[in-house]
């Protein structure tokens, strides 16, 4: 079971149980947050204090990426094909709403304390404090997002030039798998991209992070996007790491656009080198206890004595400790 896309329709894979699991996995949340931040960076939006943007989040799932958009101060609309994932997103927004209401109720009693804590929370070096307070208010308010239950492969149900930008986190590759006779990946991709072209306002940009299974898939996706008139390119971060590698399809209307260089962490490379070369000591940070016990891939006398004691405590039959216990044997190899 390597790829969820091969198990079936997205709304079937992301059922209620899977949706809850997805949303509660701290690792998942961390990864999705990072990817979203990187996508927002690639979007090159105008500063929020100038003008918050209206952003479409395709395949928004349980709202993890939407939350990051909110923290940046944007208004967003998310769409997803799985009702269960959207329900989880709704719950999360409900909880946030209740938290905010509770906070408002508490802070209204003690206004002075609130202004002080507001200043602490905003560690932006902005000279205009009023503006900062206002935008932090928007951020601290209930969710600025709206959800839609929709299949992106059938086009986007919005009127032309609606959105300032579009992001998609780990969703696009689902279009490459057909779940019924009538679903042809190329057709669905083309349909999606041509409607995206229409609903983005001119000068807007789309950053779509996806997981291509093969190089052909990545090419197919890029080609379909280019065919409808988009300019852009694929930015690949950490291309040498199987785990950290991320593909971002950046789409613009500007033909002169040149895709930026992907991130590559040279220290990441260095670390992997270390682990391979010093096998014995390199694992120090990971398993300090083990390296103390192990001595040149062997077992020390102390360890043997300790082990025998624990076995005795369990009630097992153990030979008594003598001066021969753990003595160095003649090297047979």
């Amino acid at each position, binding site marked *: 079971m390597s790829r969820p896309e091969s198990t079936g329709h997205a709304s079937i894979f992301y059922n209620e149980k899977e949706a809850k699991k997805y949303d509660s996995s701290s690792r998942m949340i961390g990864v999705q947050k990072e990817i979203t931040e990187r996508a927002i960076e690639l979007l090159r939006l105008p500063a929020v204090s100038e*003008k*918050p943007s*209206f952003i479409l989040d395709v395949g928004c799932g349980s709202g993890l990426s939407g939350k990051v958009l909110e923290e940046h101060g944007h*208004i967003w*609309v998310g*769409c997803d*094909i799985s*009702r269960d994932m*959207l*329900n989880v997103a*709704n719950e999360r927004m409900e909880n946030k*709403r209740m938290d905010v209401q509770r906070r408002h109720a508490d802070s209204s009693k003690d206004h002075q304390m609130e202004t002080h804590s507001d200043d602490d929370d905003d560690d932006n070096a902005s000279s205009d404090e009023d503006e900062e307070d*206002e*935008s932090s*208010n*928007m951020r601290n*308010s*209930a969710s600025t997002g*709206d*959800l*839609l*239950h*929709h*299949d992106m492969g*059938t*086009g*986007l*149900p*919005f*009127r032309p030039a*609606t959105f300032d930008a579009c992001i998609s986190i780990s969703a696009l590759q689902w279009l490459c798998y057909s779940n019924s006779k*009538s679903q042809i990946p190329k057709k669905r991709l083309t*349909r999606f991209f041509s*409607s995206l072209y229409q609903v983005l306002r001119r000068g807007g940009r789309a950053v779509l992070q996806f997981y291509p299974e093969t190089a052909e898939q990545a090419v197919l996706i890029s080609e379909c996007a280019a065919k409808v008139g988009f300019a852009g390119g694929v930015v690949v971060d950490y291309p040498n790491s199987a785990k950290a590698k991320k593909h971002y399809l950046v789409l613009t209307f500007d033909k002169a656009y040149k895709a930026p260089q992907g991130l590559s962490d040279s220290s990441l490379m260095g670390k992997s080198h270390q682990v391979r070369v010093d096998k014995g000591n390199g694992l120090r940070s990971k398993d300090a206890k083990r390296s103390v016990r192990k001595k040149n891939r062997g077992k020390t006398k102390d360890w043997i004595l300790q082990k025998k004691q624990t076995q005795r405590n369990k009630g097992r039959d153990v030979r008594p400790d003598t001066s021969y216990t753990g003595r160095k044997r003649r090297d047979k190899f």
Partner: protein
Amino acid sequence: MRLLTHNYLQSNVKGTEKGYPLTIEPTKIEYEESPIDMEFVENILTKIDYSALLSARNQIEDRCHSDLGSDFIVPSLPEVMPKRYSDGNSKDDKIEEDETNQEAFLKSIHTILFDIHVLEGHLVCPDTGRRFNIKMGIPNMILHEDEI
């Protein structure tokens, strides 16, 4: 579903000539006050379809009265948007408009766009009559096989 989102929603069922704006038939509405960012509301005004907003407001008014109690009044909106917002960048233009009127107008817009949530109901395409249902505040825009 906020009225802001509704202002942009369109039906793209195959064979629809103009699936906009969708008629709202609300059966459950909620009100959620949120802090106002005047500048943001001004910016948004240049992008929304005002007549669609007006009709949406009228469509939800009755439901608001029954669901939100009689003390809640859906702010009324002028038939035509004040001139300074209907053009693109007319901020520097004539400032004859009364400051308080302006602020009141922006406040009403904010309430209608952001604070009123349609939780249950239907969206109806003006062209084909196709109904999209809204459940838990989420409109279901999934198309059938023959509508793609």
